[in-house]
């Protein structure tokens, strides 16, 4: 057991939590404005695939070398933004059911990267391997500082700026915001688009940070875990960060436990069981805390001006 709890566990926790934090904070903007963000998963996948593909292209076709992962990151951001735009138009402009259109985007994003990678890279769902020195920085210290600055910034925006006040009011009671002269749809678009950007970056970090290529369905439910962290974190930035760290920690533990922890009989615990840990924790956390955590009151309800 001592082999599991090491300094590298902390580093690994930070690394693994990063995509969750980015996606969950994105979801925070969207959900605080009243739009459910079940499509985080799809946005992360879009970000992950585009980031890997753009980085590869920038590296091999344009010869951008060390700058290529940053171009890829931008690509991931734009991809998340693009998907979020489609989602926003369907949910806000056309008042589609947010859960259904979110699920549609997730399903779409399971297929599209596979199709495009076939078209561009003649592969069955993956992008080509990137060289190790053309990836995003992975130093836990750098990442930790970046994340802390990001959380502080988001906290400030949400609670200390007029934009944040309006965003929160639109998620709580859009008719009150409307009566106060605030445009509900403009703020909801902002919330959903910010979510898309952050989830896109989160996805990019998966493919060109933690690994060196995009593989089919590489998010493996992280968008949903981010959503769970957001709920567990009561839709507040700092608590959401802590929740993401908890989920990242369990994932890190489950990786370190593989082969290190044995059953009393001396046999290895099957790896599938260990891999289950983060997901089981998600269920337990949601079952235990979802009731006590109060969502924004207008979450999931399209705003209809005239009855």
């Amino acid at each position: 057991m001592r082999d599991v709890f090491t300094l590298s566990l902390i580093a690994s926790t930070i690394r693994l939590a990063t995509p969750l934090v980015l996606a969950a904070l994105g979801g925070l903007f969207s959900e605080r404005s009243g739009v459910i963000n079940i499509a985080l998963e799809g946005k992360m996948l879009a970000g992950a695939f585009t980031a890997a593909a753009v980085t590869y292209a920038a590296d091999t076709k344009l010869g951008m070398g060390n700058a290529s992962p940053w171009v890829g990151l931008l690509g991931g951001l734009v991809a998340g933004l693009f998907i979020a735009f489609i989602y926003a138009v369907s949910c806000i402009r056309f008042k589609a059911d947010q859960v259904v259109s979110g699920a549609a985007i997730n399903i779409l994003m399971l297929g599209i990267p596979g199709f495009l990678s076939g078209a561009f890279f003649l592969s069955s769902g993956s992008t080509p391997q990137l060289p190790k020195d053309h990836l995003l920085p992975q130093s836990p210290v750098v990442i930790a500082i970046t994340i802390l600055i990001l959380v502080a910034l988001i906290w400030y925006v949400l609670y200390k700026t007029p934009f944040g006040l309006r965003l929160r009011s639109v998620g709580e009671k859009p008719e009150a915001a409307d009566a106060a002269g605030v445009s509900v749809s403009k703020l909801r678009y902002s919330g959903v688009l910010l979510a898309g950007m952050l989830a896109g970056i989160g996805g990019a970090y998966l493919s060109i940070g933690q690994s060196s290529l995009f593989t089919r369905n590489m998010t493996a439910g992280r968008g949903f875990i981010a959503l769970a962290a957001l709920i567990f974190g009561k839709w507040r930035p700092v608590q959401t960060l802590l929740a993401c760290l908890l989920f990242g920690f369990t994932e890190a533990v489950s990786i370190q436990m593989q082969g290190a922890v044995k059953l009393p009989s001396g046999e290895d615990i099957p790896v599938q069981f260990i891999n289950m840990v983060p997901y089981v924790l998600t269920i337990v956390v949601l079952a235990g805390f979802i009731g006590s955590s109060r969502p924004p009151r207008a979450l999931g309800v399209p705003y209809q001006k005239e009855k």
Partner: protein
Amino acid sequence: MLELREITKRFGDVLANDHVNIVVKPGTIHAIVGENGAGKSTAMRIAYGFYTADSGEILVDGQVREIRSPHDAIALGIGMVHQHFMLVETMTVAENIVLGAEPGSSFALDLKSAAAQIRQLSEEFKLAVNPNEPVEHLSVGQQQRVELLKALYRHAKLLILDEPTAVLTPLEVEEFFGILRRMRAQGKTVIIITHKLSEVLAISDEVTVMRDGKVVGGVQTKDTNAAELARMMVGREVLLRVEKPDADVGRAALEVRNLSVTTATGAKRVDNISFQVRTGEIVGIAGVEGNGQTELIEALAGLVEPAQITGEIIIDGKNINAVSARARRELGISHIPEDRHRRGLLLDFNLAENSILGVHYRPPITRLAGNVFLDDGAIRRRATEIIEAFDVRPRNAALPARSLSGGNQQKLIIGREYHVNPKVLLVSQPTRGVDIGAIEFIHRQLVKLRDQGCAILLVSAELEEVTSLSDRLLVVHDGKIAGEVDPKVATLEEIGLLMTRGH
């Protein structure tokens, strides 16, 4: 100040505003009266930019203006306080007031200077609130003050108030009128939408009367009276007073002995109350809302956990403390709840389905071995009977309850409870949000039921209603009975004192 010219607005098949013309002079309090659905709120929502008119013009200070959203209206100095408050409950008073018109730069929200400004406005208009309190902790009267401050903070010169007194107690109404007079004295213009004629006469300078989407008249308040206004609103003569013969009282049908009700959180809401209701009489309960009336009626109707009750509830000599709501109905107790949307109707179900609630589980509504299937024919027949006997409009049992006006929803509920021939009727706020025409009808039905020998317990926040309908009147304060008065001789002041001081 504000002029609506030939405003027309259609919602689907309904012509909500039909060439409406209203002129509001600056520095006046202008009342717009009419029954529910007369188009008062629609016209004002158009002026505030919530709706856009299909045709017609809006003039502000003599100039034609385009008002496409509340944002435009606010810029023109128009503020509106809606019937259902437009406040974000989880946010503080200051946050609510500045929302959409925040002080400071767009990178930093300056709530401190906002709070100072709010305090200054509170002082000026005598609207005391604490800027840092979350709105969900405020009473309804305080929330209304926040709404007024919100408009004043935006430099509104014209305030539109939609049914502002509907949620206030009689004392709060007096206080509120004081605020309106102060605003007028400071040069503000006020439009007040209401259907309470006594208030129109008490507060306004001019009145516009609307009916069926049209303006049917405009008068100076000093030149008119309640009877004339009622006739214009309804389009026929209306009896404003209840006419009823003396009660023919029989034995005690409902008896309450030393009843106390404690909430789940341990607060004692009903405190050692005893009284009787005999057949053929209406016993009224007057009191400021929130003094235990809701809990009392719900305890009697079987909607409170028996463990939260001490004392005895007795029907025909039997203790029914532990009897379920359904079994109580079978004993002849009917309940017309205070909140028809919460307890009275399933809003998305149609009228036919709503008309059988409470008898839905037994013949003749069900058939085959007692209660396997619902009998559509029987349901339709029952619904039609109720709709016709109680003049529920529109006369279409297939419409969802949500689509009816408040008065018609209430008529449906009363008809439903009437239909089971109750021995004891518990009725709360029977005419809340109901038109004058329908109020008259509902009052007559209650008296008719009394004369058939039903024992009626009536709770109402409308003092006039409870004094004119009741044969005996109990005044409650803080969960206790503060006194019993004879409604024929007691004055409103006398009752008002008991309501507020409790002795």
